[in-house]
């Protein structure tokens, strides 16, 4: 065993000269992979992340409820409970460290009638076993005091539940990881993995890389990755959740999350009502087992069911309030027939040392992410000595946007840089300076969605009606992108087919 000093010299020599050799390779740039990348970036090791999408959080990590769960929904002593509670605690400090927004709005699990109260009592018990603090069963009058628009018989109040923007924290994790030396390759799919003397050869769509450790954080694709080296002993059961997004003018209808008691009837979803940090309301998710893990389509039927059930909880919900609909897919380890519940599998392969699998990381996956990252770091430390970096950088995401600043602050920014005075997104009041900063992101993501998720341009009422022309113009100018290569959100989602008049001309008059 090499001493820490000589090992450090060996690693520095070996890794600094070769750009394709890394100590840790993370496959998957969702919230799990990104929070792990950030965790590892604290240490003097070389890490690379392969993400097949055009940005981090381009899959399920952006298409969920954005909830930081308390832990009442997972069986005590399960990994889900353990990591959820640890993660919930970690997010309390992470928000401040990395500068993303979290609001601890709390949750009411509501019972419609006397019978459902039993379930509230059961949940409270589970919660207490999981050491979730502050749980209280309260009557409908007390709920009405805080949530005048909500109808119920009684409710379980869960103060430690919070809301977050899942794409925002994933971007914060990933961009800060890059700032501290992690390499992130977007639009890079892993095609094959082979073993070698020092670890692994990873064949990607952007060339061959080598690493000592491979962490499989691919969610829906995890079985495919496992199968590259060994026979998988599990299946992934994609389970789709559809959502409806409601207009901001509904935002004062609920303050906390409102979840009905988990449902026994088939056909009834038990629709959750979740306020978002930006002031919208989310209705959903549904739960539909599907065969295609990439089928994120939404259906008219489901939209109607979601809205109908939401109206039972909030009778005064206006009919014209829907502004968007989306769906995300859970990577379940248990089939519908078996009841659909399975615990996380966070384990190193028994046959292949250094091949670490993170399987079945569905809800409360977002909450659990930083806790899982710490667990994986511990697993990696068995192989690689982890020395904390002396110089560690943090770039906090701007907590307040131009739209949220005082007039004096706005005036001062414009004086420094006139781009703060040009409004690009009218609905969300996003300035050219903020768009330019989003375009110049350290990951090099230049899709329209990448810009949208970083500065919010395009997320308002007109859904890009005004800002699209300006963002396209800025992407051409600042990111030097050719319009044929401008994409919406993924490698083949090209926005345009070309110019109507070609740029270079032979014939010209006058």
């Amino acid at each position, binding site marked *: 065993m090499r001493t820490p000093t000589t090992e450090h010299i060996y690693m520095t020599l070996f890794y600094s000269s070769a750009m394709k050799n890394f100590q840790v390779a993370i496959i998957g740039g969702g919230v799990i992979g990104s929070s792990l990348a950030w965790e590892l970036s604290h240490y003097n090791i070389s890490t690379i992340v392969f993400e097949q999408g055009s940005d981090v959080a381009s899959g399920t990590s952006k298409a969920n409820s954005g909830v930081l769960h308390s832990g009442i929904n997972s069986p005590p002593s399960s990994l889900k409970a353990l990591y959820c509670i640890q993660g919930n605690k970690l997010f309390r400090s992470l928000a401040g460290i990395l500068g993303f927004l979290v609001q601890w709005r709390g949750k009411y699990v509501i019972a419609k009638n006397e019978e459902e109260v039993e379930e509230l009592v059961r949940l409270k018990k589970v919660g207490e076993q999981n050491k979730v603090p502050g749980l209280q069963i309260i009557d409908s009058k007390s709920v009405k005091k805080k949530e005048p628009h909500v109808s119920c018989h009684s409710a379980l109040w869960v103060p430690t539940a919070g809301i977050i923007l899942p794409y925002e924290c994933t971007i914060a994790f990933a961009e800060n990881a890059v700032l501290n030396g992690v390499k992130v390759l977007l639009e890079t799919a892993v095609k094959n993995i082979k073993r070698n003397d020092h670890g692994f050869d990873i064949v990607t769509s952007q060339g061959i890389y080598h690493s000592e450790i491979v962490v499989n954080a691919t969610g829906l694709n995890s079985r495919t990755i496992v199968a590259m080296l060994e026979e998988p002993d599990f299946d992934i059961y994609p389970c789709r959740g559809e959502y409806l997004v409601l207009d901001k003018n509904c935002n004062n209808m609920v303050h906390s999350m409102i979840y009905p008691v988990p449902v026994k009837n088939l056909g009834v979803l038990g629709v959750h009502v979740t306020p978002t940090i930006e002031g919208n309301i989310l209705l959903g998710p549904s739960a539909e087992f599907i065969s295609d893990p990439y089928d994120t389509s939404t259906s008219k039927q489901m939209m109607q069911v979601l809205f109908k059930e939401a109206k039972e909880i909030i009778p005064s919900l206006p009919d014209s309030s829907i502004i968007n609909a989306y769906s995300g897919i859970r990577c379940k380890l248990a089939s519908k027939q078996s009841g659909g519940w399975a615990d996380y599998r966070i384990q190193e392969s028994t046959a292949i040392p250094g091949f670490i699998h993170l399987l079945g990381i569905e809800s409360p996956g977002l909450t659990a992410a930083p806790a899982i990252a710490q667990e994986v770091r511990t697993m990696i430390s068995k192989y690689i000595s982890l020395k904390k970096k002396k110089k560690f950088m943090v770039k906090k995401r701007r907590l307040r946007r131009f739209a949220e600043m005082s007039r004096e602050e706005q005036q001062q920014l414009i004086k420094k840089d006139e781009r703060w005075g040009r409004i690009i997104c009218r609905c969300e009041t996003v300035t050219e300076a903020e768009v330019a900063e989003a375009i110049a992101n350290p990951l090099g993501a230049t899709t329209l969605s990448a810009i949208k998720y970083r500065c919010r341009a395009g997320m308002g009422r007109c859904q890009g009606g005004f800002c699209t022309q300006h963002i396209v113009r800025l992407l051409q100018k600042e990111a030097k992108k050719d319009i044929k290569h401008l994409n919406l959100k993924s490698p083949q989602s090209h926005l345009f087919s070309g110019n*109507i*008049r070609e740029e270079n*001309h032979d*014939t010209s*008059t*006058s």
Partner: protein
Amino acid sequence: MTSRKKITCILCPIGCKIVVQSNGKTAKILEGNKCKKGIEYAYHEALDPKRMLTSSVKVIHGEWPLVSVKSSKPVPKKYLFDILNDIKQTSIKAPITIGQIIIKNAGKHDISIIATRNVKKVQTE
């Protein structure tokens, strides 16, 4: 060769469907019109349909990449795509003023293509 055509009159919101019989040289209104104006419209539409043509021409060194243009007068339908092809092959240097003739004798027909917008020149890189 005589043929029958149903022409939708566009002079007022009613949009009468007027049936016209024509041999290419003369036309006769058979039925469908509710007023006299419709007869004249259907007659011209059957024998010599014309359309105002609007499109865009590539601009060189302008504040905008294109200048909107129109035909100097209504264009016989059969020449529309000839003229459009001419327009697509042309580019014009800024500055451009409204009314400026961009193409004379477009498509080899006695029709000009005129700018409908002012486009300032920008400094080249």
